[in-house]
């Protein structure tokens, strides 16, 4: 992650190094395969691509916290789940034609994706604000454990809330709607996800390159430097954490749409670990890393899972070697 600056005039010229080529290739394949699969009527593969895309968005979110801000959150499943449950609950009320809250705030359910996305992101942002405000006062292991503990609290909360399915989760019988397009179509839904992935990568890149990004990056590399430069690390990190949570929350909302189901497993700590694995597999701090990580993960799960039920063993072993060998990925 050497961000050594180039001379100003060459900044406008994109650098075509190997990583850029790999990124372009990965995105092109990710776009081309479902188009092809859809043309021969294999929606299954289109949905697989959507899954990769959604996981990639979740990874982009977490990568912003870890890769940019150095905040190793082990509780991002909380945001993924909140995003998912927002979709599930909105759809539930829309389907049952009941109100989310009675007086004084009568809020009805909705089946409009755009509204749901915004609500999901706002809710995740608020949750991250609360969790971050407490967690970010700690460091290192404590931060990891506290984020884990918060996610676990939300997990138990979801389990013990029978209105929304408790342990059983909620089914979304009909996919929610977007104006003008047929989101029920697998390909359309994939394209929506793909555009949102590009959007989240773009936003994350813009933010990283901004003044705010410079401050956040310094918080990761050397917090002392940041404070000495006269910038309070806490609000910077908190803002970064919130942004990261919002992106991951959007992914959760999309995940719920894709599966037509939300359940507490979206909130489990295994999920947090998995999102972290997307980030690590693709390389911490690499902008397109989560795409590669999510693709590897989903393909391994799908295809190695075909011939051995012990696919996780095959996933974990190389990870273990790479994490514990001196020169990490």
């Amino acid at each position: 992650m050497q961000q050594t600056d180039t001379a100003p005039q060459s900044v406008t010229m994109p650098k075509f190094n190997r990583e850029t080529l790999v990124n372009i290739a990965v995105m092109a394949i990710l776009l081309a395969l479902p188009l092809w699969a859809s043309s021969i009527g294999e929606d299954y593969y289109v949905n697989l691509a959507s899954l990769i895309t959604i996981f990639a968005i979740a990874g982009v979110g977490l990568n912003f916290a870890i890769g940019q801000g150095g905040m190793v959150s082990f509780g991002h499943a909380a945001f993924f789940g909140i995003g998912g449950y927002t979709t599930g609950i909105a759809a539930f009320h829309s389907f049952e034609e009941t109100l989310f809250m009675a007086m004084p705030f009568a809020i009805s359910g909705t089946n409009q994706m755009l509204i749901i996305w915004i609500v999901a992101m706002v809710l995740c942002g608020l949750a991250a604000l609360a969790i971050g405000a407490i967690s970010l006062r700690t460091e290192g292991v404590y931060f990891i454990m506290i984020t884990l503990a918060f996610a676990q609290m939300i997990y138990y909360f979801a389990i013990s809330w029978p209105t929304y399915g408790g342990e059983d989760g909620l089914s979304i019988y009909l996919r929610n709607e977007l104006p003008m397009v047929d989101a029920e179509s697998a390909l359309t839904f994939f394209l929506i996800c793909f555009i949102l992935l590009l959007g989240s990568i773009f936003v994350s890149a813009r933010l990283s390159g901004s003044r705010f990004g410079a401050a956040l990056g310094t918080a990761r590399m050397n917090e002392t430097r940041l404070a000495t430069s006269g910038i309070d690390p806490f609000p910077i990190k908190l803002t970064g954490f919130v942004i990261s949570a919002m992106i991951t929350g959007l992914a959760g909302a999309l995940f719920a749409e894709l599966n037509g189901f939300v359940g507490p497993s979206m909130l489990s700590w295994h999920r947090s670990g998995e999102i972290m694995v997307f980030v690590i597999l693709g390389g911490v701090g690499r902008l397109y890393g989560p795409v590669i990580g999510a693709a590897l993960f989903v393909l391994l799960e799908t295809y190695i899972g075909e011939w051995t039920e012990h696919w996780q063993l095959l996933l974990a072993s190389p990870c273990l070697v790479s994490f514990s060998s001196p020169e990490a990925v």
Partner: protein
Amino acid sequence: MMAALIFEQILNGLQFGLTLFLMAAGLTLVFGVMGLINLAHGSLYMIGAFCCAWITQQTGSFWLGLGGGVLGAAAAGALIEMLVIRRLYDRDHLDQVLATFALILIFSEGTRMVFGSMPLYLNIPEALSGTVALPGVEAYPVYRLFIILAALAVAVLLYMLISKTRLGMRIRAGESDREMIAALGVDIKTLYTIVFALGAAIAGLSGTLVGALRSVQVGMGEPVLILAFVVIVIGGIGSIKGA
């Protein structure tokens, strides 16, 4: 009637709390001395239970199984310390979390390959089945009482080990100044392996005790691990008293 119920529930709570304590003690020991966050601690709990189940099945003796569970977990702990964990001490916590997360997957899948995914049920030895009358409760299961006593015994032994023996002194010394204890000629690597195996043995013991009560299955350690983490976060990392 009400008082009896409350008393019985207190005992049940005590039994559960003590099992958590055993898990948390192992975790904090490892964290306090090595500064390592070990997510795979729950796997050692599971390994203890499976070793016990297997040996009990082979030999028909629960007591051999119990011993085997503890030793098996300790051996597994020592092994992963030497192969993997040792490389993680100087790494950042992200690497520690991920590597031990990978260990969980490996242990879970490995156990599933060997033992299958059917839960195993252990039979409690004759001597421990049945109930005893306690003041306030007319009948309390002997085995639950045994867990309480065993966990208390381990807690006391652990306390003695840490506070009275030379090994314990070295562990505490290593906790406060690792470099200095090495400079005095104590092999810190071996010490760490021992501490890790000790933590694993305690986890294995609680897995074995609880496994016989409930069931032995893949993933059984994780809920306990997560709860133990919460206990630790609340109790403050690194202190055995906190656990």
